[in-house]
């Protein structure tokens, strides 16, 4: 297995560009640090491990983030992403929210690794009312709190737990990964980039972290980004730390529509028609039930439609919900760390979200440059799995050797840091601030 002194981030950037049919025209902007030190210095090591002991991770996830951002920078206006440290992006929400590593509990506290009778799973109870579903999931009355859940799960089989939980809409992941994957599907063609006379108009229908980060990065490249929310169900991140919401959404314009009625849906249809890129992270059936066919809209309006999901489109996986921590478990991060250290632990803070946001921004920009007219599906699990597999030692012995070696490098370096966050460039607009303005302006496009 390679132990290169950093070309891994460069190799990853070139690999992503090649899969888009593109290549960098100038040299890639990459931090020249060993992948182990990228992990320890960006704050991810501080976010992984038991409360007593921070842990190395034996695959270059932070360096893959560097590579994805460098690939995006190579396609965008020169210098537009200068000053953004991609590895640090993976830890910046934790820096703002004050999240800390919690062993088998996610830094945010909602996701846990649980041992079933025949293996491990992750359960993410991100919404308070998810707790109300647990009696139906486990078909038994439960004492409140995680202990009762853990005890009931221990007696049951993974497959049945996951099937019943998915029917209920719980975010669940089998820790044993099943498949090897590509970062995006419906491959972008190798079409030569078209000359574009203006920056893209972006309609961001997503919430929380992955999609908003994608829109944020595109905005840094000069795009006009409109954040569209339902008046009934605004982005839940508005109720989280304001510094994080501002960091993701400052500089975007805010449109709020009542999507229950015909008028709001017609307005949404108009905005989609005027957009160049749509970022969307709902389950496909939610849009279909509202009368929107993403693939057809992408073709009709020459859009690049970025469809973010936990496990991809198509039955049955498009029904499964996922958040950043459980999707990372599904990708095999906890299983990999278990094989390397013997401990069942959560890796990073919802790390699938920022990794997916970075890859989504690259896919969106490249798709727009290639002329649009396509839907690109990015699954959180698959993006993480793609990063994990890119330079993973084969076999448990090699994995343990990598873990020891990289841990030694980080210890010798001694400059492990806590997560750091950038400062937002201003504040995010209040819900619906620009509704009338954007509808009028984009109607004229």
């Amino acid at each position, binding site marked *: 297995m390679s132990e290169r002194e950093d070309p891994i981030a460069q190799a990853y950037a070139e690999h992503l560009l090649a899969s888009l049919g593109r290549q960098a025209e100038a040299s890639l902007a990459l931090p020249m640090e060993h992948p182990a030190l990228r992990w320890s210095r960006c704050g991810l090591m501080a976010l992984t491990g038991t409360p007593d002991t921070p842990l190395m991770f034996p695959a270059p996830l932070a360096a893959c983030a560097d590579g994805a951002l460098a690939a995006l920078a190579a396609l965008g206006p020169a210098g537009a992403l200068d000053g953004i440290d991609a590895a640090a992006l993976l830890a910046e929400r934790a820096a703002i929210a004050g999240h800390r590593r919690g062993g088998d509990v996610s830094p945010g506290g909602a996701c846990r690794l649980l041992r079933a009778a025949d293996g491990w799973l992750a359960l993410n109870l991100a919404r308070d*009312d998810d707790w*109300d579903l647990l009696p*139906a999931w486990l078909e038994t009355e439960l004492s409140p709190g995680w202990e009762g859940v853990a005890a009931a799960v221990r007696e049951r089989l993974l497959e049945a737990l996951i099937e019943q939980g998915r*029917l209920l*809409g719980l975010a669940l992941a089998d820790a044993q990964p099943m498949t090897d994957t590509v970062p995006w599907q419906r491959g972008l063609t190798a079409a030569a980039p078209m000359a574009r006379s203006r920056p893209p108009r972006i309609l961001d229908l997503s919430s*929380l972290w992955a999609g908003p980060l994608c829109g944020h990065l595109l905005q840094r490249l000069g795009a006009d980004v409109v954040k569209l929310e339902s008046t009934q*169900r605004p982005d*839940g991140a508005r109720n989280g730390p304001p510094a994080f919401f501002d960091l993701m959404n400052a500089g975007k314009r805010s449109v709020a529509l009542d999507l229950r009625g015909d008028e709001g849906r017609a307005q949404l249809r108009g905005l989609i028609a005027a957009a160049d890129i749509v970022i969307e992270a709902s*389950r496909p059936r939610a849009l279909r039930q509202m009368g929107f066919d993403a693939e057809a809209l992408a073709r009709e309006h020459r859009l690049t439609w970025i469809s973010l999901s936990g496990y991809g489109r198509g039955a049955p996986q498009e029904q499964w919900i996922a958040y950043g921590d459980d999707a990372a478990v599904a990708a095999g991060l906890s299983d990999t760390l278990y094989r390397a250290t013997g401990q069942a632990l959560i890796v990073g803070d*919802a790390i699938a979200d920022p990794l997916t946001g970075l890859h989504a921004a690259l896919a969106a920009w490249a798709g727009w440059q290639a002329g649009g007219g396509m839907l690109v599906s990015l699954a959180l699990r698959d993006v993480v799995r793609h990063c994990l597999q890119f330079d993973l030692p084969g076999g448990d012995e090699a994995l343990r050797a990598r873990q020891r070696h990289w841990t030694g490098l980080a210890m010798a370096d001694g400059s492990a840091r806590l997560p750091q966050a950038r400062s937002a460039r201003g504040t995010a607009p209040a819900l619906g601030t620009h509704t009338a303005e954007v509808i009028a302006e984009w109607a004229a496009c």
Partner: protein
Amino acid sequence: MAKTALKAGARFKSTVCDTQVMVVKAPAGEFELRCGGADMVGATAPAAAGGTLDPALSGETLIGKRYVNADESLELLCTKGGKGTLSLDGVALEIKQAKQLPSSD
């Protein structure tokens, strides 16, 4: 008509359309749970002889939606959509409003 106990986690299917549901929560006791006017049966029960859908009770069920009674003591999750209207003791169930999004994940 048959009354049946509804236990959290139990799954039922319609005998007159494709509808399937899971009980999320239910009050104690026995009830007439119907879809399209016909009793629902356990999801693993053998296929019943084809009943007919009451046209007056063909309000449709949508996958992923939650259906509740008036005081929300009963909550069913639709795991497969169909043509019939869900009812409990003769009263049609209503769609419950979607959950709010979490503030973080």
